[in-house]
């Protein structure tokens, strides 16, 4: 294990892979720092550029972008109260007040160091857990896999922002969109409407670019009048002192562990991780009243956790082929484009790729720390680049990206249609994360269910008699019922309070 990793690390430090790591991390930070542009958008748009790269270089570039984008959001969250990425929402609560009180360097310094530590701690788990988990996952039968995917779908729907029902709708809609085309099990065309272009189904990349990039461009143009106020940036307090390390040590470790755990849960991304770590930090703080007014603990908790989800989320991707977050779903697409089948056998079939991903995660974290500390002043100026100029240019890149997949304009139209679909779903407060994860996981879930049913001549009994499928099913039911139960109790409490007030 160590030898393989050192080999991958050696590869990364050769000129070209290192250049890709550097470019990926820097671009990720810049995109994360520009409001309205997200890591998912960057990675989806970069995918077509990786077609002609060696697969190792492609994953190195994409993983570096992932690390950079999650970290870059901190800058806008702190200086503009505008989270550059959704994962940095919690940082705005304390980062911005601290910057407003004349300590932007201090706020950014805490965030950068917390991001770095969070990334490193989660990387340790990634390094030590991925292989053992993948070995366990190779023993999974089709029913184990099917119920695990079912649990992942319910999990992401239940914890995604907004209502549970809308999360479920989003996931199911993503599954439905993946179904047109010739059924690989029977050779029977379905949902093709007798149109030959649909025989090969809807491809991941145009759908992704549409849902994440085009819809975001539309939303950004609608809100183009949003003004960005300039904040004076100073580098004072950018590096943490020994005393800071001592004060924040427990918070750093706790938040990183929460972030890593949330990342490991299939389908749950960085936003949830930072919310949970922030809440835990507030509950355990000696000064909870300072949270929301420029608390150092708040910034550290949020940033350590959101970066820790990166390493955590790569664990189920590498070990089981199940995305830990939306960006991981895109990474699965990237692997498939390079003819690499994600799943538990990845360590056997493409060990070099897996170790390159793990090594890239570590090196990108170190580079992120160096770049952010050294160039935060420069990056913060990029936030003011006029979006009126950027958005149509990005649209051109979207068109090129969708076309380059198969050199067909059909994919470009698919991208545009899904851009509108994504925008409308967002307007109706339907989260997009479950949609993409449903789209990626549905074919795998269907394949596993059908092969399981073929093995048992149509009986679903093993789902209830085998321990793991039963556990996954029970967890799914609990995840589905728990939020509804909580909502019902809350409403009941509200009604009884209303009755009490009326009686009084």
């Amino acid at each position, binding site marked *: 294990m160590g030898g393989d990793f050192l080999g991958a690390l050696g590869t990364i430090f050769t000129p070209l892979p290192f250049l890709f790591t550097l470019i990926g991390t820097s671009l990720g930070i810049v995109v994360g720092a520009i409001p309205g542009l997200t890591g998912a958008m960057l990675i989806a748009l970069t995918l077509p*550029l990786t*077609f*002609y790269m060696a697969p190792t270089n492609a994953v190195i570039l994409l993983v570096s972008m992932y690390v950079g984008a999650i970290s870059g959001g901190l800058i806008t969250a702190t200086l503009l109260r505008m989270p550059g990425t959704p994962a940095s929402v919690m940082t705005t609560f304390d980062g911005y007040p601290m910057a407003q009180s004349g300590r932007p360097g201090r706020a950014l310094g805490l965030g950068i160091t917390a991001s770095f530590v969070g990334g490193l701690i989660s990387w340790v788990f990634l390094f030590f857990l991925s292989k053992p988990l993948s070995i366990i996952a190779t023993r999974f039968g089709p029913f184990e896999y099917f119920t695990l995917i079912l649990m992942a779908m319910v999990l992401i729907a239940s914890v995604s*922002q*907004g*209502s549970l*029902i*809308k999360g*479920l*709708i989003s996931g*199911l*809609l993503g*599954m*439905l969109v993946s*179904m047109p085309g010739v059924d690989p*099990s*029977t050779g*029977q065309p*379905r*949902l093709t*409407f007798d149109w030959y272009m649909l025989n090969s189904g809807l491809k991941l990349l145009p759908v992704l670019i549409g849902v994440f990039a085009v819809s975001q*461009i*539309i939303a950004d*143009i*609608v*809100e*183009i*009048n*949003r*003004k960005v106020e300039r904040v004076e940036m100073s580098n004072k307090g950018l590096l943490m002192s020994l005393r800071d390390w001592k004060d924040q040590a427990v918070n750093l470790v706790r938040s990183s562990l929460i972030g890593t755990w949330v990342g490991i849960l299939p389908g749950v991304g960085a936003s949830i991780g930072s919310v949970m770590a922030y809440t835990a930090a507030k509950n355990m703080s000696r000064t909870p009243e300072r949270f929301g007014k420029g608390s150092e603990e708040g910034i550290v908790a949020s940033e350590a956790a959101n970066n820790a989800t990166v390493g955590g989320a790569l664990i189920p991707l590498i070990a089981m082929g199940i995305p830990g977050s939306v960006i991981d779903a895109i990474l699965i697409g990237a692997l498939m484009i390079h003819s690499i089948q994600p799943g538990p056998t990845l360590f056997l079939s493409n060990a070099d790729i897996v170790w390159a991903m793990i090594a890239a995660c570590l090196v990108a974290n170190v580079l992120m720390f160096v770049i952010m500390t050294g160039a935060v002043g420069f990056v913060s100026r990029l936030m003011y680049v006029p979006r*009126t*100029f950027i*958005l*149509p*240019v990005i*649209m*051109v*890149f979207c*068109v*090129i990206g969708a*076309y*380059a997949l198969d*050199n067909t*304009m059909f994919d*470009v*139209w698919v991208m*545009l249609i899904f*851009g*509108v679909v994504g925008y*409308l779903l967002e*307007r*109706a*407060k*339907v989260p997009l994360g479950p949609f993409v994860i449903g789209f990626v996981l549905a074919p795998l879930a*269907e394949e596993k*269910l*059908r092969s399981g*049913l073929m093995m048992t*001549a*149509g009986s679903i009994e093993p789902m209830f008699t085998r321990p793991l499928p039963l556990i996954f099913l029970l967890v799914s039911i609990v995840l589905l019922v728990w939020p509804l139960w909580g909502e019902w109790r809350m409403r009941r409490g509200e009604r009884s309070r209303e009755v009490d007030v009326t009686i009084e």
Partner: protein
Amino acid sequence: MPDGSSPRTDIALAVLLIVVCGVVLFETRDIPPGTFEPLGSAPIPQATAGLIILCALVVMGRAVLTTMRGQVTVAPVELELRPRDALVVFVLTMAYVLALQLRLLDFAPLTIAYLLLAIGFVVRFQTRLLPWIALVAVITGYGCQYVFTRVFVVDLPGL
């Protein structure tokens, strides 16, 4: 609504979903059952569509109840939204894609024309910005053509 959406939007979403899923159910009605495997091709899309309809009905029911109880709250609009601009840029993009598909011009000149119009429209064709827009358009058009065809060896639409 608790998630911040308006009941009208929720009802429209639910109706749209029910229509789409209705089409799916109609389209899959004639798919024959599996011959050598128990499930066949139709049940999974049908079950998925059925579940979406069920969820859409719940969303619609909640929205109707909220409207009937008069609990609709209108969120204050903090900034002037420009949906018309987004629509125009989107229509321009469709025209650009169509022109690329029909190969009316090469990639670079078409991209330059698209960017001039799209950026120009969003900034209301302010005269002082036009040289900058032209610069960005030319760099993007010819820059992309050079980088994608010579460096990344990717085919571009319209070429």
